[in-house]
């Protein structure tokens, strides 16, 4: 009785002209939001970041200052919007990947491929009632989400999207990132305390303990590429690496490989991702420090959590995986295309910038996928086990890598071929490992009597 008219014919194929038009409209809207919105934002980033250093001929100082200030303001808005949009798209991607991994079809109704579901979720969250508990500290309860989102948004200032596509290439970039992500701890603590609920307090303190403890191995592991590059600036660190995998930091130094693993794990913990998501565990009693938040304030926390995936991945890519370096394009190519400094560069240069940004985005998405994949494979670690993991395993390993890199750098200065040889060896080792892993994966499929089948989206 409730059977809709779409049944005869291919499953899922709309049959009536009106339904077909509707499906096309939905697809168009999805592409507009899914490709258009990030594309627009990326385009703005590409356009605005280098232009801030441009000094048009004949303008007065005041006019140039005004131009740069406006450009900066627009860029700031673009970057924060980018953070929010990428957070939503990450939610969509994560849910689709999780669904497929658990033999389900995920979101696939709202928008083509379910892409607009995050928009719907965001709108739903915004439309909820904004509750502030009666006994909560009025000012701090309202302020806590803003600490968290400021800590998140500030990291975009130094993210190197491309060769010249960084909002501010601070010469203390790495230090800046590590410090600014610590603002999130402040936000969490304030949230937990001001909710005036014992479970929120617990959750807040647990989460703060987790993030603070894991800052240490993260920082130590981040020092390894700093030692290798000799600089704290994000762009210079990328320039010190090469484009090919055997020139990345992670493969040219065996200690850096271990440091990458340590850094990755520590970033998972700092971002409250499984296996370290105990403070927000749904299976536990409450959502921890978030339990009293609703509507937009809650949306901010979620935005930050998923946006942090991007930030974590981007920092890992910058420090260890060669950033935006494009193969076959060295610094002389960029310089040649740049032309005279102070003038607006030609199309070739813009093309190179876009190319470098594409490389950066692809690498970031790869690491992001890894984070998502780990989330849906591993269970979560208990609080005390998390602490012992940090202090007994990660910190000693991070120290060892740091000290090892000190000696390694001496070795490399004396014998540069060691870095190249290690690069080749570790890249080959990685490829062999990946081959065995994929072979095991395909064997899993046949061992269960299944086939590789990518249908049923």
């Amino acid at each position, binding site marked *: 009785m*409730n059977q809709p008219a779409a049944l005869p014919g291919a499953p899922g194929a709309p049959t009536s002209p009106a339904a077909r038009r509707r499906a096309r409209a939905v697809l168009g809207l999805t592409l507009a939001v899914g490709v258009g919105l990030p594309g627009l934002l990326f385009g703005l980033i590409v356009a605005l970041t280098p232009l801030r250093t441009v000094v048009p001929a004949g303008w007065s100082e005041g006019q140039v200052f005004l131009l740069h200030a406006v450009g900066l303001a627009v860029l700031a808005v673009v970057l924060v919007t980018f953070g929010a949009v990428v957070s939503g798209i990450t939610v969509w991607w994560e849910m689709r990947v999780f669904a497929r991994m658990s033999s*389900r079809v995920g979101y696939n109704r709202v928008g083509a491929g379910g892409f607009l579901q995050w928009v719907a979720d965001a709108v739903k969250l915004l439309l909820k009632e904004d509750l502030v508990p009666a006994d909560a500290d009025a000012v701090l309860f309202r302020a806590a989400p803003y600490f968290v989102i400021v800590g998140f948004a500030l990291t975009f200032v130094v993210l190197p999207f491309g060769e010249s596509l960084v909002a501010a290439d601070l010469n203390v970039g790495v230090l800046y990132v590590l410090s600014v992500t610590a603002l999130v701890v402040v936000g969490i603590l304030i949230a937990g305390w001001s909710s005036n609920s014992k479970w929120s307090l617990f959750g807040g303190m647990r989460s703060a303990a987790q993030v603070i403890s894991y800052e240490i191995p993260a920082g130590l592991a981040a020092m390894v590429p700093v030692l290798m590059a000799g600089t704290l600036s994000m762009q210079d660190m990328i320039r010190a690496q090469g484009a090919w995998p055997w020139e990345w930091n992670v493969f040219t130094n065996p200690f850096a490989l271990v440091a990458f693993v340590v850094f990755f794990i520590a970033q998972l913990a700092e971002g409250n991702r499984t296996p370290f998501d105990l403070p927000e565990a749904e299976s536990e009693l409450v959502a921890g420090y978030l339990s009293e938040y609703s509507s937009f304030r809650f949306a901010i926390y979620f935005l930050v959590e998923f946006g942090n995936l991007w930030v974590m991945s981007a920092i890992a890519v910058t420090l260890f995986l060669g950033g935006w370096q494009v193969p076959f394009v060295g610094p002389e190519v960029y310089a040649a295309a740049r032309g005279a400094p102070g003038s607006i560069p030609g199309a070739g240069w813009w093309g190179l910038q876009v190319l470098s940004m594409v490389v950066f985005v692809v690498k970031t998405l790869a690491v992001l996928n890894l984070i998502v994949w780990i989330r849906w*494979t591993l269970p979560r670690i208990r609080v005390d086990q998390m602490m012992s993991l940090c202090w007994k395993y990660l910190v000693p390993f991070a120290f060892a890598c740091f000290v090892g890199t000190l000696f390694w750098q001496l070795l490399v200065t004396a014998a540069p071929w060691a870095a190249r040889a290690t690069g080749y060896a570790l890249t080959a080792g990685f490829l062999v490992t990946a081959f065995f892993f994929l072979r095991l994966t395909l064997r899993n499929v046949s061992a269960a009597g299944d086939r590789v089948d990518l249908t049923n989206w």
Partner: protein
Amino acid sequence: MAQNVRAYAAAVGTTVRSIWHGMSVTLSHLLRRPVTVQYPDRTPLPVRDTLPARYRGFLEVDPAICTGCQACERACPINCIAITLEKDPANPKQRLVTQFDIDEAKCMYCGLCVEPCPTGSIQHTREFEASSADLRTLTFRWAEKPFPVYKVAKDATYYPRAPLGSILRPMLEARRWDARGPEFLPPEPPKVTPDAPPRAPGAAGAAAPSRAAAGKEHKP
């Protein structure tokens, strides 16, 4: 907590190995077809046709072969079947079933009524899609028109039942999601005010009880 080097290295080793295996399993699932059947509009067949024959869906009564034995009414543990038999005024030897109501909202689809039926008149069909907005539409009245009881021949080997579902499906079609509830209760008496003339019961008054009494439990 003294931990010797071996235990430490073993801990790291088992962690790496178990993560390796776990992640390869989840990645392999990414490559396999999900088992989800996307109901209701992306199924290759209507779901009710993929259900097995014994599926205990909505009950259907074929009045043509109902013998009026009331075995189903007695077997039902929750008394959701109500049968009333009366003598036919035209023919005193013939009995008529004047009420055969099954409250499908109360029914727990256990199948205990199907077993004692001597002719197989009451059966479970494979219909399950009958959501409606009013609970009372789920009381199926199989004796809207009173029917005579079926006389079973002494040496009968089978009973000519209508195809399963053929009587039920039109009834389900008639119960659209937005259909008004049936008129089980009399309409409320008209409110007489001194100035306004009394409204005639019927269209105007009937809408009120079907909305207002929707939550009331109807005892068949």
